[in-house]
């Protein structure tokens, strides 16, 4: 099939195209130089915004946490039903949408790739189950390694090569994409309910050098060790880190300390650590009374240090569901809110927690949190390293992205909210004094080009010849619209893509899904020398049954089970 998008106003930062009027030609699933105009299906995109399909680098869309969230909260589904159509399966759910609906909603916003950021290795099959039922999107899943006994034991014995072989084995067995680290050390401590240790990790300086009871490893050892492993395996994405102390006043210091702890491992300008949902880790003050934004300090560090990339975790004033591999944090949130609470510790490797949350504009703390997310984005000097997320659904559902984009592109849109938040909250952030407004070029960078790049997905996030034909067209003329003033129109256009094209097929038209196709699942297949791998595997076999309640054979997910399995090679050394 050939497709020609005529006269679109194109933003393609990877190819340095900044609002040029041009044609994009598509043959089959790729972007090509040209097609036969007389034969190709033509889309008239004159005066319309054309960008690569959106790439979300961190969004909880599949697996045990999301599904437990669904079961926990029927009330989240009652008010948000999505009927069946000729094309679409039914479903619903506002902050915990059902799988089919998840895919349609992303595609209808012009997104074509989304990354599930945290699954336990032993439960990865569940994530792949749900991936099969998320239509249209290309997907992949990060694997939790930060509280894994095998990793810790290798690191404590200084067996870095073996640790790398183990990580490679798990990625291969579970068909995962990257190393995720969540609250390193603390999850294991929480499995004992070790509140004393957790108190130390939450909110006192030098937390990173506290030894985990019964193990003796520190958070610094874990992050540094896995960063070295990541480099040894040449994985496409840097270590993806949710640091200690999330959600605690004063945690911005831990965040900076965490970024700084791998600084010496950097080579060149490539980020080697990705800090995720930094808003939740960007708090100043020492308690909820003198709570303030720590965004300035964090961005001062990020702007000056190229070894770091990050995403926002923006808060939206809405009723949502928090869910994270950080079980101890969710326990604290439950103690704070007395809300319903699910905890799910997972043997050997990880845990999780879920608590519903209503962010309110007139709540001092919530208002400051809202401002911090925006401050982080507005302080950022390099949109190639700072990405837009709500950490769906933690800060709010991904369907709020258009609102978030409007806040970044319009001071007036922000000010309307600032006028309504508590006075005291205003004084604890810099937001009101910030004049910056994002350009379309910057938006295209932070929501597509840069996220594809940090994921190492070379054929995504751009519109050059050879790229995947994943494209979104929005019904607005970037040359005419003034986002600063017309932010409502901007929101409307970003909410419902005029066209979304996935692998050369029109899947969304006028904001409605018109075709449902299966997306790919990307995973990383590291190539480790066979003698190293064999030695590690036989050692692992000796311990596996002592640690796990499933067998080593059954831990492996057969590739034939993966929906449109797309392995990416990574080379050791």
């Amino acid at each position, binding site marked *: 099939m050939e497709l020609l998008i005529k006269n679109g106003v194109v933003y393609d930062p990877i190819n340095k195209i900044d609002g040029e009027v041009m044609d994009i030609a598509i043959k089959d699933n790729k972007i090509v130089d040209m097609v036969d105009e007389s034969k190709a299906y033509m889309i008239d995109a004159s005066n319309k915004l054309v960008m690569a399909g959106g790439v979300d680098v961190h969004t909880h869309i599949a697996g045990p946490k999301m599904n437990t969230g669904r079961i926990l909260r029927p009330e989240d*589904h009652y008010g948000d039903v999505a009927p*069946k159509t000729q094309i679409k399966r039914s479903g619903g759910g506002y902050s915990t949408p*059902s799988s089919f609906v998840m895919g349609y909603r992303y595609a209808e916003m012009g997104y074509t790739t989304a990354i599930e950021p945290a699954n336990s290795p032993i439960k990865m099959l569940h994530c792949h189950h749900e991936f099969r039922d998320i239509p249209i999107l290309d997907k992949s899943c990060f694997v939790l390694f930060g509280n894994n006994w095998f990793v810790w034991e290798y690191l404590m014995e200084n067996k870095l090569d073996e640790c790398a072989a183990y990580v490679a084995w798990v990625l291969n067995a579970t068909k995962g994409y990257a190393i995720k680290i969540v609250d390193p050390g603390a999850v294991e401590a929480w499995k004992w309910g070790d509140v004393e240790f957790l108190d130390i990790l939450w909110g006192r300086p030098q937390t990173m050098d506290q030894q985990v009871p019964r193990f003796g490893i520190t958070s610094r050892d874990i992050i540094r060790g896995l960063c070295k492993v990541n480099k040894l395996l040449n994985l496409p994405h840097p270590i993806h880190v949710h640091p200690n102390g999330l959600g605690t006043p004063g945690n911005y210091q831990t965040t900076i300390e965490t970024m700084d702890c791998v600084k010496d491992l950097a080579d060149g300008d490539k980020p080697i650590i990705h800090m995720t949902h930094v808003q939740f880790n960007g708090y100043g003050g020492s308690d909820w009374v003198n709570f303030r934004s720590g965004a300035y300090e964090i961005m001062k560090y990020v702007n000056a240090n190229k070894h770091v990339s990050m995403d926002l975790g923006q808060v939206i004033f809405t009723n949502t569901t928090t869910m994270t591999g950080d079980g101890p944090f969710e326990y604290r949130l439950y103690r704070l809110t007395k809300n319903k*609470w699910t905890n799910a510790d997972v043997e050997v490797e990880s845990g999780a927690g879920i608590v519903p949350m209503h962010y309110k504009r007139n709540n001092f703390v919530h208002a400051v949190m809202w401002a911090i997310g925006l401050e982080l984005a507005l302080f950022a000097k390099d949109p190639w390293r700072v990405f837009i997320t709500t950490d769906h659904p933690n800060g709010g559902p991904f369907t709020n992205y258009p609102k978030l984009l409007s806040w970044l592109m319009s001071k007036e849109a922000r000010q309307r909210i600032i006028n309504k938040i508590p006075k005291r909250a205003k004084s604890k952030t810099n937001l009101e004094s910030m004049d910056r407004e994002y350009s379309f070029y910057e938006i295209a960078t932070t929501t597509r080009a840069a996220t594809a790049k940090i994921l190492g997905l070379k054929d995504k996030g751009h519109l050059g010849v050879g790229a995947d034909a994943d494209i979104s067209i929005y019904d607005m003329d970037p040359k005419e619209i003034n986002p600063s003033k017309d932010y409502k129109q901007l929101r409307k256009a970003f909410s419902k893509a005029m066209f979304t094209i996935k692998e050369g097929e029109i899947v969304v038209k006028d904001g409605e899904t018109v075709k449902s196709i299966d997306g790919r699942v990307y995973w990383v297949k590291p190539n480790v020398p066979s003698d190293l791998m064999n030695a590690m595997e036989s050692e692992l076999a000796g311990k596996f049954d002592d640690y796990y309640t499933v067998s080593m*054979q059954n831990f492996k997910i057969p590739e034939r089970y993966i929906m449109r399995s797309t392995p990416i090679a990574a080379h050791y050394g």
Partner: protein
Amino acid sequence: MAVIEDVVCPICGCVCDDIIVTVEDNKIKKVKNSCSISATKFLNFHKHRLPSPLIKKDGDQIPISLEEAVEKVAKILVNAEYPAIYGLALSSCEAQGLGVELAEEIGGVIDNQTVTCHGPTALGLHDVGMPTCTLGEVRHRADLIVYWGCNPEEAHPRHLKRYSVLSKGRFRKEREERKMVIIDVRKTKSTKQADLFLQIEPGQDFELMSALRVILNFDEIEEESVAGLPIEKVEEFAELLRNCEFGIIFFGLGLTMSRGKERNIDAAVSLVRDLNKWAKFSIIPMRGHYNVTGMNEVTAWQTGYAYAVDLSHGYPWYNPGETSFVDILRRGECDAALIIASDPVAHFPKEIARNLCKIPFAVIDPHPSISSLLADIVIPSAFTGIEAEGSAYRMDAVPLRLKKVLEPPPGIYSDEEIISMILEKIRSMRG
């Protein structure tokens, strides 16, 4: 002869994945590691099979071709106003997903055995959540293990050895390092294993949990006894709970299906929430059928709800008591049903089973059952986990891949294949 290792047992919620099966001439000759229930199943499942598709004619069931049977089922479902698909807890997640799709296609209810076992667990969870963990956590850490209203030795025979009191964990190696408590209304085979057996009066679970919460959080209780136990015993138990390092409550139908139902679960979870002030504490439901957890998971990711989902409006709606299979049967609203891998006539209350028999219904099952004997159409299926592969979720929601170790008899297909055929037929009938 082939020896197949790491076979996943498709019987109870333990979903043990270490069974070794010896196969010769497409027959199972030997099984290792399995409990007696499982061994019996593996060695005898091929006996008393449903031989071929059947249709009821003048009171008798007579053989028909698979094609005809599929068409008849499709017709029954398409012509119904308010049909239901029920069962699937003894099938693969793949078949379960297709079951939901079929219910959506025909605009009916999709429900499963949860409605007669841990439905109240889901309802309790909607109110308070559920602090839980995988079974490996119990194995490695638990020093206090409470079985409440369940009988693992008979219903989940390898539970103690693989996952709890008798298992060997990283931090608990010997039996002496753990305390086991059983709370039940009667002595069972399991109670012999317990360090402490609290025999309570039937229907008094809620009272006991409330009393424990009062003792733990507040003060003494004036009563002489609670739930038929002298107050000293209750206090002693409260101290055990408070002073352990890692505690776990496993609970069964004794809690979910006795007086109080979801209120019992609310109370149990609330107790566990409280206990986390002093110790690490979790709670795990003892799920019976090997993949009832999977059915909840699949239904949830496809519709948002774990069971009793009404798709007749074109979108999912959930209100157990209103939308559950038993209730639409009770009210005489359901006018056709497809039962897959389940035997509701044997398990539902009599008048509800009678209502089922009044409407056209079909059964897909490897074996004859009371439901199949009374069904209008019967389609024999392969035994999932032995003759067909697929996924299943253990009681703690750890997913595993079931193996196919044998070929099914000629002409016999898996649930997944049969449901696909019905779906295809319905879609082609509708054009």
